[in-house]
């Protein structure tokens, strides 16, 4: 063991303290505060007076038709973008894993969308999908697939689709990098054994590759699910929730309620429900993958 006399508890605490203060004040306190605010009748204009209101905010959230619209939007966004990014990212990782030349070049280029900021990427997509934009021109005048300009950003599902395409485009690179690293750690003799057993490429993928990278799949699944529900900037920039909150997601709707209508209590209740359900979901995902291990 270590020589105890030199290891001063005061110095250990001294190293911990700055982090604990920042983390406690700016992260842990707001989480606790969020729960309390969700139980109060609280608005932007009356930040100091906060009468206790019980579950009023929660009743208001769940009794609100718009909440259910944006709830479905967030679920659909996550259900499409998470598998979309993972499948395409894994596919590209598999392609890259088999080549030597230009591997780094491809990796760098494919990762560029990840480092592009959300504000900028969203504006580029908005410009491309504009009614008089490049995509419509291409579909109508060049390919002749459509007979007029489609108003992509003006209806619920097409507007959301643009945000989802952006989400997938921007996320593939991250998946590619972590899956590539996982693929490189799969023991080569497993593949050789499978080959001797007469397994084809697909069989090898299903019975060797997928089980071997299960840990990485779980990690990506949890991270991307959180990211999917965290979608905010792209919706705000691309559709702004139009038409009439039809393309809002949980967070953009929460933000609108808080900072445009001043309903802090409502926003807090909505946020708290989100934080709680995501925490539970992460635990469930974790358990599911662990159980299959046994």
């Amino acid at each position, binding site marked *: 063991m270590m*020589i105890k006399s030199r290891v001063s508890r005061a110095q250990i605490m001294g190293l*911990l303290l700055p982090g604990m203060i920042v983390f406690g004040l700016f992260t842990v306190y707001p989480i606790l*505060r969020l729960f309390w605010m969700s139980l109060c009748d609280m608005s932007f204009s009356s930040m100091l007076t906060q009468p206790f209101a019980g579950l009023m905010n929660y009743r208001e959230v769940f009794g609100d038709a718009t909440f259910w619209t944006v709830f479905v939007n967030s679920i659909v966004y996550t259900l499409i973008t998470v598998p979309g990014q993972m499948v395409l990212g894994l596919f590209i990782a598999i392609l890259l894993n088999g080549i030597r030349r230009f591997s780094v070049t491809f990796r*760098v280029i494919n990762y560029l969308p990840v480092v592009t900021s959300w*504000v900028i990427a969203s504006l580029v997509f908005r410009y491309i999908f504009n009614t008089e934009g490049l995509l419509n021109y291409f579909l109508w005048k060049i390919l002749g697939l459509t007979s007029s300009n489609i108003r992509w950003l003006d209806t619920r599902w097409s507007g959301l689709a643009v945000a989802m395409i952006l989400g997938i485009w921007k996320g593939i690179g991250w998946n590619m990098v972590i899956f590539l690293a996982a693929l490189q750690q799969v023991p080569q003799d497993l593949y050789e054994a499978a080959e001797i057993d007469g397994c084809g490429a697909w069989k090898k993928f299903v019975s060797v590759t997928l089980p071997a990278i299960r840990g990485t799949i*779980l990690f990506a699944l949890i991270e991307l699910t959180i990211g999917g529900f*965290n979608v905010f900037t792209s919706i705000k920039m691309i559709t702004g929730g139009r038409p009439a909150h039809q393309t809002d997601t949980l967070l953009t709707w929460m933000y609108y309620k808080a900072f445009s209508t001043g309903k802090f209590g409502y926003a*807090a209740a909505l946020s708290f429900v989100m934080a709680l359900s995501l925490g539970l979901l992460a635990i469930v995902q974790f358990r599911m993958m662990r159980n299959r291990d046994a």
Partner: protein
Amino acid sequence: MNSRHAARIRWAVIRYLLLAAGTVIFTLPMIYMISTSLRPNGALYEYPPRFFPRWEALTLENYDYILHQSKFYLNFLNSVTVSVTTIALAALVGSAMAFVLGKFQSKLTRVLFVFIIITMIIPGTTMIVPQFELATRLGMVNRLWGLIPFYVAWVIPFSTFMIKGFMENIPGEIMEAAWIDGADVWTVYRKIAMPLSSPAIASVSIFNFLTAWEEYPWANTVINDNAKRTLPIAIAGFFGQHQFTQWGYVFAMSVLTLIPVVVIFILCQKFFVQGLTAGGVKG
């Protein structure tokens, strides 16, 4: 043997073709952004739209306009100040926490680590309302430095988590030798733990830089003054300012904002991959 060789070559060709096709899709939006920034701003929604501008219409007038606005330099400086301060503080605070959590196990450190993991699960923006209230109480609203503590708090869980994994691998013998030599905790942290885990600190810092450089929701909520805006807010503001968006200006400014990021990314891509995979592969 020969047919097997042929099959291998065929597969390699297919791989390269698919990768090349993917690369085109990945880069198209960015190329279109650059090409739009290089055409006259008057050609608002020029019709028919062109992917590449006409050669004789190529112009740097959008860049000229942006670079002649003092506001741009102010926004740029704001972004640099906030990002650099954030990564410096996060590296210090995060590595100190990681050192203690990784090397001095106790009930307190275990509880603290669980807390850190939990906060990594909660999407940051869900806390924006209580954080706004807190910022108002502390007088941090509409102040550039007011952004920094929130950014540091944001990136600490991830930073601590990553650096802790690295600190744990520092051999116990090195530390024991230091204790025997009479070093105290503080010295061991500064002289041994920090230098030995510098690769982890570097890769975490790159991610923290990106986070702070591109952060939009929080800065957009608490900063009102033009002069205190960071780049993402300035770009978004440009976009909403007029009835008709001046896309040439928007994209010229976007390109200028992306240059530092792309340069850092290409120079440090080794650290990027290290940082990304450390969490994912071990699962």
